[in-house]
């Protein structure tokens, strides 16, 4: 009696293993189980707390100049946040630069509110001990474009220049590991451990990952991370020199990525491992 029970258990385990193996092979994806977990997480995305905080930070009078960001022009006119994420990066005449959301916010916080640039850059990424205002603001402005589609236009010569530079950097191998972005993001079904890597040479995957990707709440970081952080981390993973916050290279890559994601329906903040 005892023996047959045990046999039954062993059979059941073996069957479960076979089934699990079969599923993984058939779908060729590492994280189908994780996908379910992510879906459950997205229903209660802690990133929504950052959206609320970002909204407060945007409308509150802050900084040495005691001003809100309601005069900040993100490309849709002063203080307009709806649709701003969808059309960034773009060229701004006042700074004579192409700027992404983070670098534009940096300009506004320095020019309008009188914050020190170095201070904001130092606090660009939140830690467990200190939340980052930048991460909250980006969450709020990203979420304000929810339901809209990515629509980055390359009308100005400098925008086209940035796009070209970004595309070049995306494919250019360099550094001690001879890595380019495309090394990890050029094939579907690739992953690092259990983390699936989007194939960014495929428009469909690009649209999905950009329009629903960053800003995203990262469970392992207990905070929202922005595109600038994602790129910074990719550069670290490639053992490249540190990618400067709001640097031309980071904006160039964002211009290339966001333009390639045109048409993707925005749903932010995302939620990630």
């Amino acid at each position, binding site marked *: 009696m005892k023996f047959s029970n045990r046999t039954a258990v062993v059979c059941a385990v073996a069957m479960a293993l076979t089934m699990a193996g079969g599923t993984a092979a058939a779908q060729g994806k590492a994280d189908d189980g994780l996908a379910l977990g992510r879906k459950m997480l997205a229903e209660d995305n802690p990133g929504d707390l950052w959206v609320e*905080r970002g909204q407060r930070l945007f409308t509150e009078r802050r900084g040495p100049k005691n001003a809100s960001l309601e005069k900040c022009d993100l490309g849709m006119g002063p203080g307009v946040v709806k649709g701003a994420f969808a059309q960034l990066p773009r060229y701004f005449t006042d700074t004579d630069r192409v700027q992404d959301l983070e670098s534009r916010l940096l300009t506004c916080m320095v020019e309008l509110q009188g914050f020190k640039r170095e201070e904001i850059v130092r606090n660009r990424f939140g830690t467990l*001990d200190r939340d980052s205002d930048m991460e909250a603001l980006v969450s709020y402005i990203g979420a304000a474009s929810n339901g809209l589609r990515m629509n980055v236009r390359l009308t100005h010569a400098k925008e086209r220049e940035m796009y070209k530079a970004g595309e070049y950097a995306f494919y250019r191998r360099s550094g001690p590991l001879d890595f380019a972005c495309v090394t990890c993001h050029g094939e579907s079904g690739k992953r690092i451990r259990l983390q699936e890597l989007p194939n960014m040479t495929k428009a469909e995957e690009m649209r999905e990952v950009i329009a629903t990707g960053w800003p995203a709440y990262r469970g392992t970081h207990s905070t929202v991370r922005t595109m600038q952080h994602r790129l910074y981390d990719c550069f670290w993973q490639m053992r490249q020199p540190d990618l400067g916050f709001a640097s031309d290279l980071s904006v160039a890559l964002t211009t290339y990525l966001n333009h390639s994601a045109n048409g993707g329906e925005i749903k932010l903040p995302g939620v990630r491992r």
Partner: protein
Amino acid sequence: MAEPMKIRALLKGDVADIRVLVAHPMETGQRRDAAGALVPAHFIQSMIVTHNGKPVYEGQWSQAISRNPVFAVRVKGAKVGDKIVVSWTDNKNDKRSDETTVAAG
């Protein structure tokens, strides 16, 4: 000053599904900061949910609960428009109370 919670209360049949996003550091007292100093424990100790003023959940929480936790309870016999109040008190005697009304699911 504590950040506000985000509360959703959706009615499914006669059961209200209440989901709460809580903004709280929930420090365990085990973590060290960048300078190597121990970060003092700071966590929610008491969590109370009331339905039209009547307590439906009273919990004693601990450090074991994650930072910025997601918390969900189901309340039987709820109706659209019922008032749900969620309140917590942490070990530093910080408090926060937020409310919402039950919406059709």
